[in-house]
């Protein structure tokens, strides 16, 4: 267990495990794990303690006070939007309206509406019908790919490992545009190809359908399950499988009886992560579903905040419903990983990655993975790129008609530069703030436990289980009457509160692995705590900091669920612009924007991984 905050609260625990799986990055450098035994340091622990004690009598109090102060601030920031959403659900009118009173009308509309055909009925049904199968399929697909890449002798593994992570670089709208271009029933390229080949007049695919929405979501989320389980497969003690093999279990039985159950904590964390994302995902079902009246809760909430006049109490009340759904996910997660603590104590040292020799099967597996890559990632990406270069939507492809017009339109739009600047401020700001605050908090939490630190740890993890849409509505209710409203500040605040936990977890995980003797030897050598931090910890933490920074950067660059509720005319971001272009029917410009964004994110990604040693692949739940 990385953090011991037992008995703090069931929901929190889940969030915590979840975060641990999501964030305990594998990028702790080898040098951290190679613990250096320092005989001088261990020979005089009493002396160190004595020094420590002498120094800390006064310092201890100050430090405790700082921790409590920090805790108070974090608690207020985290709890406010949550409390606001509950408060809002019981109001009759928008915040600040003098005629607003308390009433149950919104709550009734939302909850009774579930049974008597209210606006939440079909939305809730659709949300659940979408979230559960998508979570299961995306998790299974991601797991399969992670296994293929880490534990088999399939050719081209390294290449695939990179390829399957590509979709982390772009927003869900890329899948939406790509699949619209490919599988629009009237004008999709695939459908065009199909009728050209067969002469059939009925389209082969229709992306504006339940199946189409689920399809796009599955491929968009599967890379998360992949990312979160690659490390798990790598760090699994393979002798556990080998002894099962010797005991008579074939590959399938080993997988079902040993490998997957042992990795259950990590798998369940990935599933929970995807489930929450599926609940808050409004762009994919929102865009593809409007054509067929397929609404979801997240989208319906967005509409309530976006319509004129807006219905913020209704949005808040529905937000509580979405929150309940995500809590059910947390509950399921808790059931699945009930016993995972006992897995921790038994890890052997020095195992090597066990690769299953597949014989000719490796080529079959290669084919399957290639197909998944093409269908899930390459095809929609190419379709978007193509669309960006085409002036109008066509069912056929004529190389002569390629132009850069869409990019020209895009870059001459005033919004574009504004959005670019805003997104950059937000992504750099949130990533930097999360890394710096994360470093401070992680340092406080990991070294020396106290009640305040446990609660702090808990508070920081709390927003994890909250769907972005709900968080957005909460922030709206809480800050709508403050000057913060409609500024970049509210977006930045929302992002920092939501994503701080990621950096705290990854940095904390790495800090735990740094042998205290390293610091102590620096202290014995005469370094002040600050110097020893700069000299010992910071260099060791650099790749972890880079990874945490990159993770938050990537998430913010593509965030749309809560920003769509909080943005204003001057605070548009790139994903929101893409969304708006798309809804205006400017597919070409939206595509050009999506491609531009992929380019920008790609450059940052390469710089961070190449020059700062960032590595997003998470280690399994430890």
């Amino acid at each position, binding site marked *: 267990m990385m953090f011991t905050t037992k008995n703090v609260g069931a929901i929190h625990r889940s969030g915590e495990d979840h975060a641990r799986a999501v964030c305990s990055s594998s990028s702790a450098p080898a040098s951290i794990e190679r613990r250096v035994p320092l005989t001088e340091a261990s020979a005089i622990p009493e002396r160190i303690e004595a020094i420590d004690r002498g120094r800390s009598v006064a310092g201890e109090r100050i430090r405790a006070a700082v921790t409590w102060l920090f805790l108070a601030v974090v608690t207020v920031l985290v709890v406010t939007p949550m409390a606001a959403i509950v408060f809002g659900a019981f109001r009759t009118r928008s915040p600040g309206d003098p005629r607003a009173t308390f009433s149950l009308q919104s709550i009734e509309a939302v909850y009774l509406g579930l049974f008597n055909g209210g606006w939440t009925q079909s939305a809730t049904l659709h949300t659940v019908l979408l979230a559960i199968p998508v979570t299961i399929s995306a998790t299974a697909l991601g797991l399969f790919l992670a296994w293929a890449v880490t534990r088999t002798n399939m050719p081209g593994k390294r290449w695939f490992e990179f390829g399957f992570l590509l979709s982390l670089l772009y927003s869900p709208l890329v899948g939406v545009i790509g699949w619209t271009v490919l599988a629009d029933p009237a004008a999709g390229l695939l459908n065009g190809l199909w009728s050209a080949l067969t002469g059939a007049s009925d389209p082969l695919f229709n992306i504006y359908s339940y199946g189409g929405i689920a399809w796009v979501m599955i491929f968009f989320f599967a890379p998360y399950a992949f990312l979160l389980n690659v490390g798990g497969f790598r760090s699994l003690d393979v002798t556990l499988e080998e*002894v099962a093999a*010797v*005991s008579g279990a074939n590959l399938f039985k080993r997988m079902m009886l040993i490998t997957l159950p042992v990795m259950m904590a990590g798998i369940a964390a990935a599933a929970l992560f995807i489930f929450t994302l599926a609940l808050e995902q409004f762009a994919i079902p929102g865009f593809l579903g409007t054509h067929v009246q397929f609404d979801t809760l997240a989208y319906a909430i967005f509409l309530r905040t976006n319509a004129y006049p807006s219905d913020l109490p209704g949005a808040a009340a529905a937000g509580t419903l979405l929150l309940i759904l995500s809590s059910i996910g947390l509950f399921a997660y808790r059931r699945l990983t009930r016993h995972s603590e*006992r897995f921790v*104590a038994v890890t*052997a040292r020095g195992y090597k990655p066990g690769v299953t020799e597949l014989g000719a099967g490796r080529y079959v597996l290669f084919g399957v993975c290639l197909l998944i890559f093409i269908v899930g990632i390459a095809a929609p990406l190419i379709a978007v790129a193509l669309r960006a270069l085409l002036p109008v939507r066509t069912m056929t492809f004529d190389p002569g008609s390629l132009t850069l017009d869409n990019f020209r339109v895009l870059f001459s739009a005033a919004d574009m530069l504004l959005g670019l600047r805003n997104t950059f401020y937000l992504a750099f700001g949130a990533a930097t703030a999360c890394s710096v605050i994360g470093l401070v908090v992680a340092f406080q939490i990991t070294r020396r436990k106290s009640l305040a630190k446990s609660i702090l740890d808990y508070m920081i993890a709390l927003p994890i289980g909250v769907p972005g849409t709900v968080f957005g509505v909460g922030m709206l209710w809480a800050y709508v009457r403050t000057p913060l409203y409609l500024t970049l500040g509210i977006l930045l605040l929302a992002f920092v509160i939501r994503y701080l936990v990621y950096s705290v977890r990854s940095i904390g995980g790495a800090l735990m692995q740094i042998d205290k003797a390293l610091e102590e030897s620096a202290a014995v050598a005469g370094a002040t705590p600050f110097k020893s931090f700069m000299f010992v910890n910071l260099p060791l933490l650099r790749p972890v900091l880079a990874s945490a920074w990159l993770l938050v950067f990537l998430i913010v660059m593509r965030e749309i669920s809560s920003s769509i509720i909080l943005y204003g005319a001057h605070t548009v971001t790139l994903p929101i612009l893409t969304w708006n272009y798309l809804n205006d029917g400017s597919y070409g410009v939206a595509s050009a924007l999506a491609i531009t964004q992929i380019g920008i994110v790609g450059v940052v990604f390469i710089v961070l991984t190449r020059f700062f040693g960032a590595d997003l692949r998470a280690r399994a739940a430890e």
Partner: protein
Amino acid sequence: MASISIANLRKSFGRVEVVKGVNLRINSGEFVTLLGASGSGKTTTLRMLAGLERADSGTISVNGSVLNGEGNFVPAHKRGMGMVFQSYAIWPHRTVYQNVAFPLRMKRVRPAEERAKVERILELVELPVAKFGDRYASQLSGGQQQRVSLARALVADPQVVLYDEPLSNLDARLRESMRTLLRTIHKETRLTALYVTHDQLEAMVMADRVCVMDQGIIVQEGAPRDLYDRPANQFVAEFIGQANIFDLSDVSREKGAVRLSNGISLNIPPGNWPNGEATRDRKLVIRHHHACVLTNDAPAGADNLLPGRIKDSIYLGDRIRTTLTLAGALEFVAEGIDGPSTSDIGKDVIVAVPPQFCIVV
């Protein structure tokens, strides 16, 4: 019960060949240890026998049926073996009972029989079901985990049991008692076993036969006593027990004598010569405790006397280790229950080495 025969087994990882033609026969019911330094290829050999690694060439057969040969590879789960790993490899998500019962479930043994077998085997490893059956690995000590692992390897009456340094993670006292337990179990069951270790004492205590492995080949095999008394080469002499090893300037088998580099000649009885003709690079091996430092005059008619000067003397409790300098600056170590004391340092003495303890390799 099964006999194993391994012929000319080879395995490379990348360009490095780590097993370079191992030949080994294990008779039915025999307990053989594979002893060797770290990195000598013991684990790799064992894993090929288990089916966890595919051999590059050579054959492995059990009871005459080929498990790994030309175009033929029986995977691990079809070999019916039991294996104990150094890291225990207890499945953390299963209880002790479920861990042990797993091989039986794979064989589709009836529930009643499964229960009986698991209970019996857990009794044998001194982890009664009533007390330990429902525990998880994290609730067991290292020694208990290793006993679960042992029970799991033995429960399904495997043809062969394989051990890869099963005791090396345990502390000295526990290792001793586990060793005794293992011996008892194997005396009782007479299962065919291959036991990998790098601890020479363990190898000798446990085994009917010890195979010494060095750099991918088996350099000598035999009963523990044979290996100790008649090492086949310098590696075995040094790896098992401690010995003085001398270069020889003259070797004459006909005369039954060798000459050390300092000109002193020693008699070697006919039985102490190696097989084979080559006379170059022969070495003389004399175990530390086979030499006797004579502080008084040598008895009349004694053979193989080496004059030297005492350089150091260390009291080790149960014996005394004396380091001497012989003519020609050769160093010699002798150990005995009695010997010179520190006050004797610098004295000139005679070391007597009975000819039967002088071995040419």
